[in-house]
Structure formats: structure tokens, C-alpha cells
């Protein structure tokens, strides 16, 4: 379990993280989404014991990251958003080096490395120099490196960034496999829609603050207040526009085609039912009354639209 308590990080007058609080249950996959500079990497760096918070702290399995960082390192596998590799090492040797750094016995490493390379689909590249691997392969190798000491928690900062669609799918499949293994995974991305199917819950960070947390559907619920409704009428479009303009909960009414209007609706599901009843009561020839399907990308854009 990961528990972040009042976590704050300031650089001079700039506040990168502002009193963040979140609890991530064991075995869940928690996705963190937010625009660049929102504080995702800062949070991850603190959890990875690479950055000291200004105030507040975080606990992994009950261990305080600020009090016992060396113990934390045994629990976590960290993959930074940007990373380099030792070019003159072969893929197998690369993993062997990190295995040794975690104090794993040479005999164990010998058995472990082929398994890890198998997991990330790089078994055939064991004796290939790391610098000749493609970007996607390097990302997967780095993921294998995170796993070498069998950590309970994985902290993956943008693991799919810069990958082509096929490499992303491969990365996603590996993450699914890790989820099935029962790892607690903390993952950040700006291509969250792709990862949404494997995230149990999401956190949206903006200006160093967590603005929304919960399951993917809960976040969608939270944002339902700002849903977009689309109404199609057979005729009498002008009267329909007039009607919706009179409704206090409807905003930003736009005519999209000759028979369709679209508007923002700041009401609950009940309000929405009432609105439809009212419209029918006014004898509007309504053909369809639908809510625009929003996906995670839209939610992300919606939440972060105030951010420069």
C-alpha cells in the first residue's frame, strides 16, 4: 500500500507539489495523469527516494520514505521518464549489473535474467549490445531492470512515452501481466486512454495538486456536471434553441447542423430527465436526446483546460 500524506515540494517560490494526499491500495494499478510540469515526476522522484520533500511524507508498506529510504529501495522498482543505458554492455550484462546492485547472488541472477528477458520479449537479445536496441526494446529492458529484485511496488514514469503504437501495445501487455502478478503499480502517462483499461483507479494532477481521484468511472461521474448534450429535432430548430436558452442549467448553446444543437449541461442525471420532460411538454419535435460520449482524453482536456 502507498500512502501519500500532505506531500509538498517547493523550489524557492515555485510549488511543484502542494499538500498532496492519496492512498493507493495494495495490488492496484494507479494511473497518474496531468499536463507537463504538473508534479507527476516530482511525486514519483520522492517515492523513489531521489528527492527530499519540503514537508509531508509518503509511506510504502508502512515504511516512511523520508525516514528509511534504504528500506524503501528494496520495495520499489523505479523507471524514470528519461533514462540512459550503458552502451557497451550487453542486455544480459545490463540486467546482471543491476541484479548485483541489489545484492542478488550470481547463481540466482543467472537463472533470473533469462526469465525477465522472456517476460519483456527480449529473450533473443540477451547478447546484443544495449545501444543497438530500439527505443521500445530499451524501455522494456528498463522495465525488466525494475523487476530484477521482485519489488512489490512499481513506479513507472511515462513508460510508454516516445514509443510507436506497436511498442505501446507490447508495453501495455507486459504491464497487464505484471498486474496479474499482483504488483502495485503507479504509472504516469499523458496517453492515459490507452492505459485506462488496465488502471484500477486514476489520479489527475494539476499545478501540484490532485484535482480528482477514484476509479475511471468515478472520475467520469465527477465530471458529469460538465457533460455535453446533443439534441436533434425534426424541424422547428429555432424554437428548440429558444427553449434551451431559457433553461438555467444549459449553457453555450450551439447549432451544429440544420437539425442538431449541442450545449453544455451543468446538472445531475435527474435534472437531465426533467429537462427532457420539459422539452417534450413544450411540444418540441425531438428525434434524439443524447449525451456526448466523453473518453478519458476529453476528461483530461476538460480537467486541465485552465492550465497553461
Amino acid at each position, binding site marked *: 500500500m502507498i500512502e501519500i500524506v500532505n506531500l509538498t515540494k517547493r523550489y524557492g517560490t515555485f510549488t511543484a507539489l502542494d499538500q498532496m494526499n492519496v492512498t493507493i491500495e495494495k495490488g492496484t494499478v494507479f494511473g497518474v495523469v496531468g499536463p507537463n510540469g504538473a508534479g507527476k515526476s516530482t511525486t514519483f522522484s520522492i517515492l523513489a527516494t531521489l528527492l527530499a520533500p519540503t*514537508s509531508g511524507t509518503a509511506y510504502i508498506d508502512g515504511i516512511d520514505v523520508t525516514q528509511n529510504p*534504504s528500506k524503501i529501495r528494496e520495495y520499489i522498482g523505479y523507471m524514470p521518464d528519461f533514462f540512459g*543505458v550503458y552502451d557497451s554492455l550487453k542486455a544480459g550484462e545490463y540486467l546482471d549489473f*543491476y541484479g548485483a546492485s*541489489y545484492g542478488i547472488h550470481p547463481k540466482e541472477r543467472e537463472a533470473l535474467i533469462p526469465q525477465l528477458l522472456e517476460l519483456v520479449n527480449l529473450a533473443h537479445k540477451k547478447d546484443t549490445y544495449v545501444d543497438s536496441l530500439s527505443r521500445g526494446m530499451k524501455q522494456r529492458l528498463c522495465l525488466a531492470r525494475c523487476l530484477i529484485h521482485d519489488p512489490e511496488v512499481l513506479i513507472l514514469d511515462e513508460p510508454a512515452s516516445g514509443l510507436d503504437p506497436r511498442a505501446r501495445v507490447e508495453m501495455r501487455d507486459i504491464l497487464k501481466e505484471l498486474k496479474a502478478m499482483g504488483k502495485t503499480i503507479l504509472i504516469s502517462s499523458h496517453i492515459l486512454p490507452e492505459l485506462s483499461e488496465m488502471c484500477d483507479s486514476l489520479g489527475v494532477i494539476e499545478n501540484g495538486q490532485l484535482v480528482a481521484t477514484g476509479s475511471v468511472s468515478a472520475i467520469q461521474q465527477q465530471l458529469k456536471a460538465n457533460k455535453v448534450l446533443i439534441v436533434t429535432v425534426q424541424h422547428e430548430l429555432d424554437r428548440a434553441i429558444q427553449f434551451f436558452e431559457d433553461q438555467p442549467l444549459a449553457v453555450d448553446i450551439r447549432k451544429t447542423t440544420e437539425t442538431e444543437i449541442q450545449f453544455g449541461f451543468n446538472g445531475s442525471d435527474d435534472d437531465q430527465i426533467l429537462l427532457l420532460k420539459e422539452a417534450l411538454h413544450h411540444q418540441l419535435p425531438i428525434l434524439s436526446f443524447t449525451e456526448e460520449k466523453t473518453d478519458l482524453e476529453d476528461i483530461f482536456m476538460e480537467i486541465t483546460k485552465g492550465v497553461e
Partner: protein
Amino acid sequence: MKSLLLNPVLNKEFKLRLRSFKSYLGILIYLLVLGTIGIGFIFLTTMNARMGYFRPEESRVMFMVLSMVQLALILFMTPGLTAGVISGERERQTLNMLLTTKQSSGSIIIGKLLSSLSFLLLIIVASLPLYSITFLFGGVAPGTILATFGLYLVTILTIGSLGVMFSTLIRKTIVAMITTYGVALFLTAFTAFLAMLSIQFLSLGGPNQAQNPIPYLLLMGNPAAVLITVFEPSMQKELLDQSGISIPLWISYLFTCALLITSSLWISIAKLRPNMKGKRSKRPKE
């Protein structure tokens, strides 16, 4: 000892170093420079002598010249090899991953230092056959040779530790390297210059001036001065008489080096990873 030999960083660095063509090129250039000076010295000496002799006394001078050149080369190479060990990893974006492993800061720093120094030792060992020319002509005691190589070892360790420290503290390799060169230059050239200035300044007062410990104190960290006192015991005696200090300069040098090595390594180990507890106690509570 076994755990030291199994240091993962040391192991990896050996692999990386010996797989790089640059390392072999470095050894080649080093030996070419030293060899040219050695052979050139013999050539020049025998060319000007009518009989074409190369006497033990000249062999001794050649050894001194070679040793001084070797010291200069060491002072030139050590910062280059050590001042990038941590900042280089930072620049290649591999440091963060290394720091999140279980390896202790001490093990990482010592592994980095030893791997760079082993390469310098390899170069010095590779230069031994060149020194053997001196043995053909005699003139140098085995003790002097041992002392010279001991001095190299201590100097490498000192400048190397300083290099690792600057590499840990300074983000950019190039700045860390310049700083280390600066310190090496200060320890060798600048202290020697100040010492000479101090001697000259006090001799203005006439032949019966009081004892002056300043040159001795200035030269306590100067490897070149120590090397000269090893070659020329008379200079050592003069320095001791003048300063009124009876401890041979090399002992003071060892002491200075031990202090520099310990403090640089201690700072490097303490500063490699962030202090996770931060400065929170100094900040007002919100």
C-alpha cells in the same frame, strides 16, 4: 575483501573501460610520450658527449626527468578520469536508476574511485618497462623507485578522491573537471610558487633571518616537491633546517593526503543521495 572485489560498480566499470577503444589509445599515447622523452634524453646526452657514454649519473638524471614527466602525466590524467564518474552518470541519465538500487552510497563511490584508479595503475605498470632502461645504466636505488611509485599511488588516490567529490557536488562534468584541474594545479604549481616567493621575501632580511616554516607548510600537499626531496635528500635537509620542523616532508605529505582523501570521500558519500529528511525542521509548520 571479497565483497570489495565483487563491487558491482567496479565490475561494470572494468567492463566498460576495457571495451572502449579510447582506453587502449590512452595507454598508447601515454607510453609514446614517456618513451619519446626517455629515448630522446639518452639520444641528446650521448650526442653531446664526445665519447658517447651514458653514465650512471646521467641515468639518475634521466630517471628524475622521467619521474617528473610521469607525475605531470598523472596529474593531468587523474582529474580527467575521475571528475566525470558521478556527473557523467547523471548526464547519461543512468544515475537515478543506480541510486534507487540497494547499493550503498559508499559502495558506489568507492567502486567508481577504484575503477578509475585501477586504470591509472594499469598505465603506470605498462610504463615500467620504460623505466627498466634506467636499470641498464644504474644510478638509482631500488628504494628510490619504490618511494616514487608509492608517491604516485598516494597522489592518484588524493587527486582521484577530489575528482570524485567534485563530480558528486557539481552537476556538469566539464565544470567538475576544470575544478579538479584547478585544485591539482594549486597543489603543485601555485604552492611551489608561493613557497619560493616566501623564501625570497624572507632572505631580503639578510643571512641571519629567523626560521620560516611557511615554505614547508605550503609544500605539505605538493607531490612535485616531495618527489624532489626523495631524489635530492640535500634539498630536504635545507627545507627542514629552514623551517625548524624535523618531520620529513613525505610524512607530512602522507598526512595531508590522508586528510584530503578522507574528507573528500566522506563528502561524496554523504552528498551522493539526497538527505530525505530534508531541511524540514527549519521550515515553519503550515
